[in-house]
């Protein structure tokens, strides 16, 4: 059984681009690759020739086996890492060497662990991006209060992170990523460090927030249920070196994406399909690893 047949297969899904939104992409990646220096002095290819266009108001979910370069891809999109090869463009402006520093205001980044600064209260954590961007003037208190209300933590402004539960901390970090009003929210397995119940609760919370703010969101996840609940478009990466194995639009209608989504027939079908694809990629990654990793 050769699962590489799935590469760019679009049969069971509505093809990407035929969705509700036809405007041009905000952020584009054109054959972006990333090499790391490996321990043995050689080079490790983490991301291989990924091309992707992110459209306005779109929610993209990136699935993939562990160590598939998902996080690296997201970090390149957010300007934390520079691509080795390939170009990126933001609203038509083309950049050869990654997203430059003066454009990072357009992005908000949510990390896998909450990554709050433990020496700052919740309000002061939300102030951090504003301070760094030199925009912590008047009105910032209102903006911070607005964000805390959005994530339902308006009463916890003066609390230190260690006094909050894991789920609450991650909601603060979501608010922090949005406080400077970025166009694009990048989330690196934002729910990955939470227990199962909190995780499910927060994924519905995320859906509500994405609908309320209508921001572009790109989320890396290892959870298919989350991807089907949240994603307008779903990408599956291969094991290292990560390249796009499968890409398709999610055609579960918005009104069906609620607590009852697991009963939805389309959901069940897509879930089974994605499950197969992701498993096949993990399996292929393990085999390649055993035979010496010719992909490196």
């Amino acid at each position: 059984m050769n699962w590489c047949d799935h590469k760019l297969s679009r049969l069971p899904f509505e093809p990407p681009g035929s969705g509700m939104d036809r405007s041009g992409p905000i952020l584009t990646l054109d054959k972006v690759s990333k090499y790391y220096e490996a321990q043995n002095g050689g080079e490790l290819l983490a991301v291989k020739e990924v091309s992707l266009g992110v459209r306005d108001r779109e929610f993209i979910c990136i699935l993939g086996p562990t160590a598939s370069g998902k996080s690296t891809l997201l970090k390149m999109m957010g300007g934390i890492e520079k691509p080795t090869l390939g170009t990126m463009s933001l609203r038509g402006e083309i950049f050869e060497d990654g997203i430059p520093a003066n454009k990072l205001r357009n992005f908000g980044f949510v990390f896998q662990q909450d990554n709050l600064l433990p020496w700052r209260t919740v309000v002061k954590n939300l102030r951090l991006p504003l301070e760094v961007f030199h925009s912590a003037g008047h009105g910032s208190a209102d903006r911070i209060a607005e964000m805390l209300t959005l994530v339902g933590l308006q009463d916890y402004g003066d609390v230190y992170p260690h006094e909050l539960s894991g789920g609450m901390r991650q909601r603060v970090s979501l608010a922090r990523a949005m406080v400077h009003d970025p166009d694009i929210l990048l989330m690196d397995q934002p729910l990955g460090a939470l227990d199962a119940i909190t995780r499910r609760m927060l994924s519905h919370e995320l859906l509500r927030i994405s609908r309320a703010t209508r921001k572009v969101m790109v989320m890396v996840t290892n959870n298919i249920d989350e991807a089907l609940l949240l994603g307008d478009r779903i990408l599956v990466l291969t094991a290292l070196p990560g390249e796009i194995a499968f890409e398709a639009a999610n055609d579960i209608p918005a009104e069906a994406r609620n607590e009852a989504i697991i009963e939805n027939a389309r959901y069940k079908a897509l879930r089974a399909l994605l499950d197969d694809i992701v498993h096949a990629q993990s399996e292929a990654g393990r085999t390649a690893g055993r035979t010496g990793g010719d992909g490196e």
Partner: protein
Amino acid sequence: MGLTLEQRRELRRRKDRRDRIVGILAPTFTFVLLLAAWEALVVWLEIPTWQIPRPSSVFAVMFGSFGEFLPHIIRSYSTIIIAFACASVVGVALAAILTNFKALGVALTPYINMLCTTPVITLVPLLLLMFGFGQWVLILAVTLQAFPILNMNASTGFNNVETLKLELMGSLRATRVQTFRHCILPASLPNVFTGMKLSGIFATTACVSSEFSGGNRGLGARIIAYTQFMKMDKAFACIFFVAVIGLFLYTLTSYLETRVVKWKI
């Protein structure tokens, strides 16, 4: 847990208060107990005062002859406090520079560590020969002994900030100065305070041992002089005064730490 945040904070405040009271009472009790044992042993074994004085007579001398000690107390305390302040500034500033400019760090760190392991008492005669008997020579010597240990601790802190936190600053395109101010320095404060506590101890011992080896001023010099004249009660009084400043610096740093590093659990 069904407790509100306010209730949890109140419980914590109560526990902190209990801990603080025990933290003061228990060591005081030990102190009194030790002195009582010392007093009893000296009386019981009939040890002569010129060998080991009774603590009660030491305290009597500390207060009775305070005027005689005062100039030396001022001299030693001012040396220690000024040198400790200089060492704190130099230690942290140097660590910030050395961890930011890797080549400089690699070039200088071994020699700073060497300074830390060399007893300053060996340098003092040399320094006195070169610069005379001024107090600032001692301040220089004590600073040299006290700053490297702080520098080592602060550097360890600055170099070991979580990558994830640095990536956060990177995602906000923070400048180096911003990253240091908002992320590296606050994250390393526990290490900095540990370094400061050690540096206070180093400053105290370095000052007294420097005074042993040169001049006739300061508590160190008096300890030598009184010992030579078998005035053990006065020698012990000087030792107690040294202990007081050492304890003071340690307590001051610990207090500052609890004030500044409130977020640590």
